[in-house]
């Protein structure tokens, strides 16, 4: 058994068209409403943004700070100079400390006649009448080198005896740490 459509063919087509129109109309209304809502919402968000207020606050703070520009500038200068001073203090040589250490192990009977200090090298020429004192001095220097106290390397460059006076002359070269 098959259904019999009693409506004329043109009426069926008209009903489909009406339905399509209704769907399209609803869609257009929803879209229009959504567009209007989103647009108004964004407009309100933009309008109520605190940007202008914040910018005004920023200007006011800058104006307040500008009255203390001298303090800020002085702070920058002090910082900058302290950084340079720090660099100088870190990199400058402390030969006085090296000399102090050298003199601390120097027996009284030894006299330094020549001393050259440059680029982490300390060269000493000394004289004494006592070979024991010279030996003690050299041993103490080697001990300092072993303990890595200021001295990296010790080299005895020359050791001579002046027969007429009985004086020993010796030259030591030290590489400083």
């Amino acid at each position, binding site marked *: 058994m098959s259904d019999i459509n009693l409506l004329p063919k043109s009426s069926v087509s008209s009903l489909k068209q009406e339905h399509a*129109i209704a769907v399209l109309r609803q869609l257009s209304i929803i*879209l229009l409403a959504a*567009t209007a809502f989103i647009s108004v919402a964004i407009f309100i968000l*933009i309008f109520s943004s605190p940007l202008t207020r914040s910018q005004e606050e920023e200007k006011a703070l800058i104006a307040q700070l500008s009255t*203390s520009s001298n*303090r800020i500038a002085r*702070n920058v200068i002090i910082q900058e100079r302290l950084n340079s001073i*720090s660099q100088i203090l870190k990199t400058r040589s402390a*030969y006085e400390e090296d000399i102090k250490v050298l003199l601390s192990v120097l027996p009284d009977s030894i006299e330094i006649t020549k001393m050259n*200090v440059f680029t982490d090298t300390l060269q000493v020429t000394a004289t004494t009448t006592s070979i024991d004192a010279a030996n003690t001095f050299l041993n103490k220097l080697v001990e300092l080198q072993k303990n890595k106290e200021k001295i990296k390397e010790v080299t005895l460059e020359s050791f001579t005896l002046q027969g007429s006076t009985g004086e020993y002359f010796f030259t030591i070269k030290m590489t400083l740490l």
Partner: protein
Amino acid sequence: MNFIQTTDDSQLKEVFLHYKKFYLSFGIICVCILLLFFVIIPQFQQYTEQQSKVAEVEDRIATLKKNLQYVVAINEQQQGTDLQLTTQALPEEKDYAGILYAVRTASSRSGVGVGDFTFSVGELSAANVLSKTTPFISMNLNVTGKPPAVGLFLTELAKVFPLSNVSEIHLNNNFSNLLVTFYYKSIPALKVNYTSPIMPISGANQKILETLRGWQTDRPSFDVTAPIEASGSASPF
């Protein structure tokens, strides 16, 4: 194509009337799409840009508030003293009087005698002064004294202003020749930027300030021509 070409006006009118009810809705949808692309999306972009601007401004405000808080708390008198101290330690220009005073002070404290001295000023161009590295004046100085006294002289010289560095020592009996460099640094042109964070003096730099305070001496107004125990030959070239 054939259809259009063969259709007459009445047929076109019929088609138009047949779809007439769709036009309004279709038009509204088209307008909405256009509004989406030409109004809503740019509006949204504007909003997001504005939000990021707000965030930036808020950040700057936070920095400005911190800066203001720090600046208000600065003790102006202490700051002035610190500035004077650092400028004495590292003068803004070649401070010959300061150098001579430093040598004299170190000499009197250590008991060495000061002999001849020569300044090697180097290049006098502005580029040298404004270079990033700390500029310096070299001084060739002769002193008389035994090694312990020379050692003490070096110790004392390290503690007086302007700051210096002894790079070479040549001692022969009681006569020593020293190569000393005295540092200075010009103050660069400053452009204060209020929105960058103002850094307080770090702990390490506070320690340096303390050290410098310990080394500071009351420097009298020093007459360069006044005799010190030396015969000076200051040659800038």
